[in-house]
C-alpha cells in the first residue's frame, strides 16, 4: 500500500510546527519548517514515547515535548550523541496540498 493520501492544505500546518494525522498505523506527525519543507514521522519519541508533534521545531529538527530529545526531521534519527530513531514517512506538497504516504 503505497498510496499518496491527501492530508490538508499547507496553511493548516503552522510554520515551525506540526499537525497530528491519525491513521490506522497510529499517529503520524507532519512537520513544516521555516522554508516550508515538510517531514513526517511516527508521533512517538524513541526516548519515552512522547508525542513529537507537540515539540518545538527549528531548522530541520524537532525537540521532543517531554524530555527535550532532539530528532533530525529528515531521517527521524536522534541527534548525536543520543541514539534512537522515529519511523519516517514520505510526505510531499502538490499545489499547496500536503500528501502523506504510509507505505514503506
Amino acid at each position, binding site marked *: *500500500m503505497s*498510496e*499518496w*493520501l*491527501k*492530508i*490538508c*492544505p499547507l496553511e*493548516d500546518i*503552522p*510554520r*515551525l*510546527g506540526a*499537525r*497530528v*494525522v*491519525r*491513521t*490506522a*498505523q497510529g*499517529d503520524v506527525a507532519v512537520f513544516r*519548517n*521555516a522554508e516550508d519543507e515538510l517531514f513526517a514521522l511516527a508521533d512517538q519519541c524513541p526516548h*519515552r*514515547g*512522547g*508525542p513529537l508533534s*507537540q*515539540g*518545538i*521545531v*527549528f*531548522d530541520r*529538527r524537532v*525537540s521532543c*515535548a*517531554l*524530555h*527535550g530529545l*532532539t530528532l533530525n526531521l529528515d531521517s527521524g534519527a536522534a541527534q548525536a*550523541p543520543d541514539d534512537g530513531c522515529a519511523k519516517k514517512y514520505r510526505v510531499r506538497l502538490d499545489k499547496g*496540498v500536503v*500528501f*502523506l504516504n*504510509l507505505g514503506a
Partner: protein
Amino acid sequence: MRRMKLVMVGNGMAGVRTLEELLKLAPDLYDITVFGAETAPNYNRILLSPVLAGEQKFAQIILNDRAWYETRGISLHLGTAVTNIDRRARQVRAADGTVAPYDRLLFATGSIPIRLPIPGAELPGVLAYRDIADTEAMIAAAATHRHAVVIGGGLLGLEAANGLKARGMEVTVVHLAPWLMERQLDATAAGLLQTALEQRGLRFILGRETRELVRGGKKSGGRVAAVRLDDGSELPAELVVMAVGIRPNDALARESGLFCERGIVVNDTMMSYDPRIYAVGECVAHRGVAYGLVAPLFEQAKVCANHLAEFGIARYLGSTPSTKLKVTGIDVFSAGEFMGDSQTDDIVLLDKKGGVYKKLVLKDGKLVGAVLVGDTVDSSWYFQLLKDGKPVSEYRERLMFGQSGLGNTGHQGKNRAAELPDDFEVCGCNGVCKGTIVKTIKDRGLFTLEEVRQHTKASSSCGSCTGLVEQILASVVGGAYQPVLNSVKPMCRCTDYAHEDVRRAIRENRLMSIPEAMRFLEWRTPNGCASCRPALNYYLVCAWPHEYHDDAQSRFINERAHANIQKDGSFSVVPRIHGGVTTPAQLRRIAEVAEKYAVPTVKITGGQRIDLLGVKKDDLPKVWADLDMPSGFAYGKSIRTVKTCVGSEWCRFGVQDSTRLGIELEHALDRMWAPHKVKLAVSGCPRNCAEATIKDVGVVGVDSGWEIYVAGNGGIKAEVAQFLAKVKTGQEVLEFTGAFLQLYREEARYLDRSVHWVQRVGLDYVKGRVVEDAASRQALFGRLQEALRDQPDPWAEQVRTDSAEFRAIQLDSCQAEGNRDERMAENLPS
C-alpha cells in the same frame, strides 16, 4: 568568495581547541593547514601520567584522531616540523620542503622541557617528560631497568616518579628546594604529600643539586648509570628523568622576528606584534605570564577563535591557575596566594594521622588562596569563590567545612565525588550513574559540563546534580576542568551573546519579533533552537507587552496548549480559583465536566487548586468552554497561584485577612508571564500556615501590618525566602510585590527562578530598587500594571478562535488520493 588560509604551527591541546572553537563560530571562513612536530594526533597531554602509571592506554587519551581533521577538511602534516616563517611572503616552510602560504598564522608551539646543562645530560637513558615519545621511552626503560632518578619534585616530577614506581622501578626524587612542589604547596602540605608518597615506596632527597650524570661501563652500552649530587654522593640510575620545568617554545617565532619575551608576546586578543599572527598556549607571554596549565590555555583558545572568526568581541584578561596532582589516591589541590602572610587571615585544618590538611587564605574578607591535601572534594567550589572574588565573611566560620557545610541539603554528605561508588545514581532525573559519567568523560575526552550534559544527559534536566557532576568532571580531568563563569555564558549555542546582551538589544533597538532579533544579533542558526526561541519569545513579551505578536511555535507545548502535558501525551486542566477560595456552584461545574469527559483523575494541587488530569488534547477547548472559568496558568512560566491560609475572618489566631489579600494579589497578577513560574502565599499570622517563606513572594500578617519575604523556593533545593520589607496596608503589599516581580521579569534570565536571580544580583540591589527608592518602586509597579492591562484569558480566547492546534487530522487507512474531495472537505476548518 575565496576562503582565507589559516596555518597552525603546532598540534597540541591549546591549538586544536582554538580550531574547534573557530569551526563552531565560522566553519567556512578558512582553509586550514596544521603542522605537528609529533607523529601522534592531538592527545590529552595532561593524561600522560595515567598512561605512564599504566592506568590508561594512549588510545584513550587521543582527543582528535586523523578522521577528525579529514572530516573538517583540515590538511594535517604530522611529524613535520616547521623550519622557517617568511612573514613578508606570508608563508611557512616545513622540514620536508612543504610550503604553505597564510592569511592568518597561529602559533601553538607549546613549551619545551628545560634540560639541566650538566655533564652527562646527553647520555642515553636521560629523558625529559613532555610528550608521548618520552612516556613510551620511560615505559620501555621501566621494563628492563631497575633504578630511576627523577630530578625535580614539582608536579610533573612527582607524577613521573609515581608512574615509574607503579611500573616496578626503584625511584628516588632529587629536589633542589627544601620541600616538594614549593611553587604550589606550603611546607606542611608538602610534608603530608611526601609522607604519602614515601608510604608508596618513593624516596626523596631534598635541598640537593645534581652535579653530574655518570656514564656506565661498556656492558651498559654507554647508558647513564648514576647521578652524582653536590655533596658527592651517588645514586644508581639507569633512567634519569629531568622534570625541572618548562619554557615557552618560541624559537621559531624569534627567528621570524616576532617580539618575544619569555614567550611570544600577545595582547588581550591573543594577537602577536604581527597582526596576521596569533598565538595561544604555553608558547605565549600574556601580560608577562606564560601559563603551563590547561584551563587558562582553553580560555585563550576561546578568545583567539573569536578574533580569528572576525567576531572581534572577546578579551583574555589572564587566569588564576589552580593545580591538581594526578597521582591516583593522593589528592592535592592548590590555587592562588596559598602561602599567606602577615596581611592575610589564614584558616588551617591539620589532621596529620589522617593525612588531611586544608588551608584557606583570606584577605579583605575574600578567599585569595587555598591548599588542600588528602581531601580535595571542595576544590572546585573554593576555586570558584577565589575566582569570583565574592565576600565570604558571612560564612567564614563554616568555610572550612566546604560547600556541604553551608546547608546544601540537595547532596549533603554525598558530595565526595571521587569516593562515590560507580553505581551511585548521580542524576535522578535521567538515571545516570557515576560510573557512566566517568567512563564517558574518559572515552570521549570531555572537558566541560556542557559536553557531559550532552553525552550523558546527567544534570541536563532539573540541574540539581550539577555541582556533583562538576566535581566528578574535575576529579577525572583534573586541572583541565573549566568551571563555566556565569557572567560570560552565552544564551545557547546559537549565539555568543549572553541573556543580558540580548535583552538590552531588544529594548534599545526596538526589535519586535524573533526573526528580527536573530537577524540583528547575527544568530548562527536559521531559526534558533528549543532553548533560545522560548527565551526570546519571553523577552519580547516582556519588553513589548501590547505590541509584540506572541509566537506560539516558540513556546513549549504547555504554554502553546494552555495545559500541562503528561507522560502519556494527555493534558491536565487547572482552572483559576483565586486565593484557593471556591463556591459550591464552581465545584458542581467542575464535577460535571470531570464526569462528562471521563477525566481519570481529579486532584487537589499543592497550590490549593483543582487539577483535572488525563484530558485528551482534542477535548481541551470543549472542557474549557464547559468549565467557563479562566485559565489557572498551572502550565506556564508565569504567575501560578497565591496560596492563602484562612486568616482573621475565621481563624482564632489570625491577625490579618490573608484570604482577601491573597485573592486581591492573584487578581492583580493574573496572566503575568515571567522568566519562570512564580508562586505566592499569604499567611494571616506568624504561624504561617500558607508556608509563605518558601515562595517567590511570601506575605505574612503581623499585628501591625504585613511582612514581605522574597526569593524563597520549595523545589529541588529548599530556600527560605528573605525579608524584603514590612508594610502597613494591603495596598502597599500589592505595590511592593508588583515592583519586585516586575524587576524580576525585566532583569532575570529566562528560566531563572526568583531565588537564582536574587542570589546573583544580591538582595541589597533588589531592596535598593524596590524598598529604598519609592519612585523606582512606583515606576516598576506601573510598568507591570501596564503590561497586564487587558490581557485576555487564553482559554476563552481559544474557545472563541477555535485554532487548528487542538484538532488532529483523522485518516482512515482506506482513504487514498481517489476520493480526495471528500477528505478535503472533512479536514478543512469550517
